[in-house]
């Protein structure tokens, strides 16, 4: 029983939960979105700042469980400073890992601390928690790209 549980709650996840990276809402930003997980009520408000095709900043404010909080923290580590295209491809890799029902072997070179979420994929009820901020980020990024830069 606790092996499964330890697989879910990797040390890396608990570390990010206790000390989230890049947390808090910051200026400047081109788009801001608010996403909720309707079943449990977890919420995230997330902003993106893009410039010259690069993710300059991702800032967020959120309430939720350890999985959703840690995953927001890992997301920001992975995408800030990356070209938008590369960040989108990391997003896709993380999504595939989460939707793989535990059959996908995570690539540490791409996902870094994100590989700790491999165990979450075996808990269908928690996949939505892990994806909350990632879906918010994709939404915000798409909006920022289509709406162009607003002051």
């Amino acid at each position, binding site marked *: *029983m*606790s092996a*499964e*549980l330890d697989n*879910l*709650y990797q040390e890396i996840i*608990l570390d990010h939960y206790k000390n989230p990276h890049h947390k808090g809402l910051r200026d400047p930003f081109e788009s801001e979105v608010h996403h909720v997980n309707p*079943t*449990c*009520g*977890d*919420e995230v408000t997330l902003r993106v700042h893009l410039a010259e095709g690069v993710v300059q900043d991702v800032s967020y404010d959120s*309430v*939720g*469980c*350890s*999985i959703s909080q840690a995953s927001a923290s890992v997301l920001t580590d992975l995408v800030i400073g990356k070209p938008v295209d590369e960040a989108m491809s990391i997003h896709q890799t993380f999504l595939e890992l989460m939707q793989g029902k535990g059959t996908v072997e995570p690539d540490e070179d791409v996902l870094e601390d994100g590989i700790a979420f491999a165990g979450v994929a075996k*808990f269908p009820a*928690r996949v939505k*928690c892990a994806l909350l901020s990632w879906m918010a980020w994709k939404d915000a990024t798409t909006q920022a790209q289509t709406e162009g830069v607003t002051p």
Partner: protein
Amino acid sequence: MEGLLPDLDVIRKDFPILERMLAGGQPLVYLDSANTSQKPQVVIDTMVDHLERHNANIARAMHQLGAESTEAYEGARDKVAGFLNAPSRNEVIFTKNATEALNLLARTIDLGPGDNVVITEMEHHSNIVSWQLACERSGAELRWFGLTDDGRLDLGNADQLVDEHTKVLAFTWVSNMLGTINPVTDLVARAKAVGALSVIDASQAAPQLTVDVQAVGCDFLVFTGHKVCGPTGIGVLWGREELLNELPPFHGGGEMIETVTMARSTYAKAPHRFEAGTPPIVEAIGLGCAVDYLGHIGLDAIHRHEQAITAYALEGLQSVPGMTVLGPLDAAGRGGAISFELDGVHPHDIAQVLDSRGVAVRAGHHCAKPAHARFGVQSTTRMSSYLYTTPAEIDALVEGLHHTRSYFKVG
């Protein structure tokens, strides 16, 4: 322990699922009965028997099976009428669940600009959103009772809220989040005094309190089958017969008519007026059996059991450091659902660790977001007991919570 059902061991044997072993060889500790109750063998067998031996459509089949099926379905209506002490069997309408019963009322009760509907801040979403929609459609105003810090209805401004323009006063008998038991007869009297219709959501009351619609004196009352040991897919709307027959139909279709021409139709009287189409036949029969089962054990005995377990649980929970229970703290004034917060651990994570030990609880907002917002919390963990819950299961929960704290290294 005083108050427990005397034959608890025997009662537990009625519920086959309680023997279930979960992953890792953990026995099931089911503390999520406010979400849905488990089903006794007799309900399962009755439904299987109907499907195996008596299945046919009701009312319209001119053969032996049709007669048997109709008799069983209408027999279930009699049982539910008895369970509610309804003056007439025609007042019992089968719906899909409590949500559909509430929506039926919110759709058919005539509202207009200048009218108001009064609800409370502790309602389940089904008794909020259905009235929000009705008010948006009709231009009526939606009002609500707030809550006190200890999780009771704040009746301080009742005279301003419920006034001569109030058309409907709709409220829950027992809160699914806070456990609070509301003063139903007092609220019904307030509605009556201004000529408003009273609507009681008894979804959490019917499993654990004697529900006597004549003693309460309300106009309408709803509950849902799956929380009273019955199956899913079946709920009940009870209403005073003359009121039901004044309401316009809800769904149009087969069995709800008197006669149909291409130009117009006339409608059957209650209950068929509100049972368009083929109803959930076997589910209704299962529900009839379930309320018989509860009646056999006795609602008073079940209520005493719930109070004893709830008092024991409240005491056990208080032994966990960082614990905050929401809602009334005395077991006498509350039902068997206890929502709580544990400092430093999110409800999702609590439920996950408990689940790994076989303890099933609910985490989230329990379809009562406004009540959570009232107490400044986004979500809670909820344990809920029922007639088959043992003190040992409460011990397993409390131990599990101590373990959760050490697992997440809090304190």
